[in-house]
């Protein structure tokens, strides 16, 4: 098993360069948020795009510099720290705003800034008619900042800042075209479902913190954790080992962010956002945060085999079910979305069987080919005037060759054709899954076949056959501009060759990727020895089923040997309906969780208005009735007496008041007469 102390005693390097990796995109975002409208009205869309692309590229350059300086260090001292400022220091909670750069962060930041920069460039071409481009680019940059904080943050709390920050950007970008309620509803759904995950994540962090506290020393800082978690052994809460509980809570967070069962429902809806957003956030980077989190805390997960079992089972189920849904979708982006869910399932299978490096490796290769697929789909959608239904496409390879070829390469890669990136990473996972449990392998194996089928169904429906678009759109079909095709080409090259970073030993490679990550995530040593022959055999099987999937797609959608419609009617048509309607999960959640919450909310509001306030107003009424009664007594009896006195005085006053004529002259005469009389009386006496 993993040595839990593998990063405990490394020499720590320090660099102030690190903070600028996230801060530069943040600055870019700030500039575009505050001055974007002005820049755009003076310098056009190019101005705001230049700020965004520039800051993203600058960040990429810094990452590359940091990466090479990291390589220069000794293999076991590859950790760079940059503590920017104290953040929260209360009691035993000590967290700084600090970043750390180690092989795992290096891999993630390279992917984020590298692919992120390409997508920024692509966006300039894609959003060519967008009046609010400044807002789009500002949000993209803000997303880069949040995502980089997530992977660079040196503590769980700072990681959580990025974790929720990417959720915010995702919300804002899904609902970017906010005049349409469909988009904003999808954004809200994404945010709220993610919040459910975040809720679990937070609980995991709290439990970890207090468990460590009772074990001796509490901490949320990653570089301190490996040395401390040993103390959690044997500790239990509610009869469950705390490590299991902590990791399960954290995994709830991962299912939210990385769209696993049961919280995957937001990701397909998230396709309402602009396509570059889907590529960047909902394929290449943000959704892999859960995988990264498990990789970052692999020493903790390794202590909780029960959790890993849960992770693996959920992941395999997600990979399989999402793939089956992908078969029936007709929206080009929805297919890719379910494919993403399914591929994320693969990554989690790897995490669940303890093959951390393999999971991260698939994360990297997937980032290349899925970004390429999404951007290719975006190129198609852009050319088709925002038409996303594949039934209205077809034959596009003649109109947009570059998009077609790059898309094909990426599809080949995701299908796992030998030599491409997807082949190496997927087989690494399948092999490790097999070593853990053949049943997992079967699930992954079947999913691989289905993946190949629906990807090539997509390719054939979109790029082959007759163009089914209407006349108007067909006239305007064109290849996209260089801003969009060059990123595609670069990503396609990556999809082809990124796999050679981690060629397994069985194929004569050295798996440099896994070695690079080893100081951070360690590696699982598998008990027992398996023959090379078995490994070759499994590889051949998965390649075979992928080939079968492609062949089937070709037979159905190009050769039309079977009609798709007749296949849809198999079994009375219900399997197709179930796939098409995504297993009715949305409907289920709508009927239970959503309606339950809304019902409870209505009930509570009614209770508040009627019962609680009713008691208040009721007591006021009772008081008033009492007051009326006592008032009556007061009026008739007590006041009667008082009034009698008053009446008597009043009557007397009525007589006496005649004296007050109000005439000044009268008064004066009276005064003079009286004074004279008094004087006279005085003298007379």
């Amino acid at each position, binding site marked *: 098993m993993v040595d839990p102390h593998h990063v405990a005693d490394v020499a720590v390097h320090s660099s102030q360069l690190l903070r600028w990796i996230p801060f530069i995109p943040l600055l870019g975002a700030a500039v575009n948020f505050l001055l974007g409208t002005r820049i755009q009205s003076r310098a056009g869309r190019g101005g705001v795009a230049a700020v965004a692309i520039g800051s993203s590229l600058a960040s990429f350059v810094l990452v590359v510099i940091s990466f090479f300086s990291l390589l220069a260090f000794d293999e076991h001292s590859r950790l760079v720290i940059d503590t920017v400022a104290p953040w929260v220091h209360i009691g035993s909670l000590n967290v700084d705003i600090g970043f750390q750069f180690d092989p795992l962060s290096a891999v993630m930041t390279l992917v984020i800034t590298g692919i992120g920069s390409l997508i920024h460039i692509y966006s300039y071409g894609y959003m060519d008619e967008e009046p609010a481009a400044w807002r789009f680019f500002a949000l993209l940059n803000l997303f880069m900042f949040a995502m980089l904080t997530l992977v660079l943050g040196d503590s769980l709390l700072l990681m959580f800042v990025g974790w929720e920050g990417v959720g915010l950007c995702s919300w804002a970008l899904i609902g970017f075209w906010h005049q349409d309620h469909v988009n904003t509803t999808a954004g809200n759904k994404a945010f709220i479902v993610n919040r459910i995950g975040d809720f679990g994540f937070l609980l995991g962090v709290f439990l970890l913190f207090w468990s460590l506290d009772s074990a001796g020393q509490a901490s949320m800082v990653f570089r301190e954790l490996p040395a401390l978690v040993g103390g959690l052994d044997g500790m239990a809460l509610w009869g469950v080992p705390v490590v299991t509980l902590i990791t399960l809570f954290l995994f709830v967070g991962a299912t939210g962010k990385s769209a696993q069962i049961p919280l995957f429902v937001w990701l397909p809806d998230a396709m309402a956002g602009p396509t570059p957003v889907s590529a960047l956030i909902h394929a290449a980077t943000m959704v892999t945060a859960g995988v990264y989190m498990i990789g970052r805390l692999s020493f903790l997960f390794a202590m909780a085999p029960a959790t890993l079992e849960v992770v693996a089972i959920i992941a395999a189920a997600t990979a399989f079910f999402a793939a089956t849904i992908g078969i029936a979708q007709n929206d080009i982006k929805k297919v890719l979305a379910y494919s993403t869910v399914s591929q994320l399932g693969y990554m989690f299978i790897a995490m669940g069987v303890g093959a951390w490096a393999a999971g991260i490796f698939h994360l990297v290769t997937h980032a290349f080919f899925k970004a390429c697929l999404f951007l290719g789909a975006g190129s198609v959608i852009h050319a088709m005037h925002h038409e996303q239904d594949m039934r209205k496409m077809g034959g596009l390879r003649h109109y947009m060759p570059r998009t077609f070829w790059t898309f094909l390469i990426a599809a080949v890669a995701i299908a796992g054709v030998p030599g491409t990136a997807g082949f190496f990473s997927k087989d690494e996972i399948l092999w490790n899954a097999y070593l853990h449990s053949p049943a997992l392998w079967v699930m992954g194996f079947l999913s691989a076949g289905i993946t190949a089928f629906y990807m090539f169904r997509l390719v054939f429906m979109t790029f082959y056959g007759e163009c089914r678009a209407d006349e108007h759109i067909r006239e305007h079909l064109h290849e996209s501009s260089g801003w969009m095709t060059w990123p595609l080409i670069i990503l396609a090259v990556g999809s082809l060759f990124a796999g050679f970073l981690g060629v397994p030993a069985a194929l004569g490679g050295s798996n440099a990727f896994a070695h690079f990550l080893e100081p951070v995530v360690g590696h699982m040593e598998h008990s027992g020895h398996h023959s090379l022959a078995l490994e070759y055999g499994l590889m051949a099987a998965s390649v075979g089923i992928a080939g079968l999937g492609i062949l089937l797609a070709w037979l159905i959608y190009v050769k039309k040997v079977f009609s798709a419609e007749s296949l849809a009617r198999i079994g009375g048509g219900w399997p197709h309906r179930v796939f098409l309607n995504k297993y009715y999960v949305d409907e289920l959640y709508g009927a239970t969780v959503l309606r339950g919450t809304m019902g409870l909310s209505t009930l509570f509001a009614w209770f508040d208005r009627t019962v609680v306030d009713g008691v208040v107003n009721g007591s006021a009424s009772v008081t008033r009735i009492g007051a009326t009664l006592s008032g009556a007594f007061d009026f008739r009896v007590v006041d009667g007496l008082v009034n009698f006195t008053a009446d008597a005085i009043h009557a007397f006053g009525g007589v006496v008041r005649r004296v007050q004529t109000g*005439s*000044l002259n009268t008064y004066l005469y009276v005064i003079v007469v009286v004074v004279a009389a008094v004087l006279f009386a005085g003298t007379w006496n």
Partner: protein
Amino acid sequence: MPEALGLHHFLLVGAALFCMGLYCVLTRRNAIGILMGVELVLNAANVNYIAFSRYGVGGVDGQVFSIFVIMLAAAEAAIGLAIVLGIYRRSGSIDVSQMTSLRG
């Protein structure tokens, strides 16, 4: 002739002034006229004060009091005129026989 000018001459002048003032106060219907009557009454008192101060035993007390009375008269005139002005604004008239709103 000087011995002819004694205290009682001044008192006679004062009494005459007082009576004129009183008459004015009692007979006038114009509020300002009444105020002027009051001034006369006050000045009659002043004449008496000064005279007693000169011929009596009080020393300068009488003069001091007359200063007070002058000040009082000024203040009274100011406030009285302000009231009259206010009444004029309200009713458009300063005829005191019309001002009977305080009748009981």
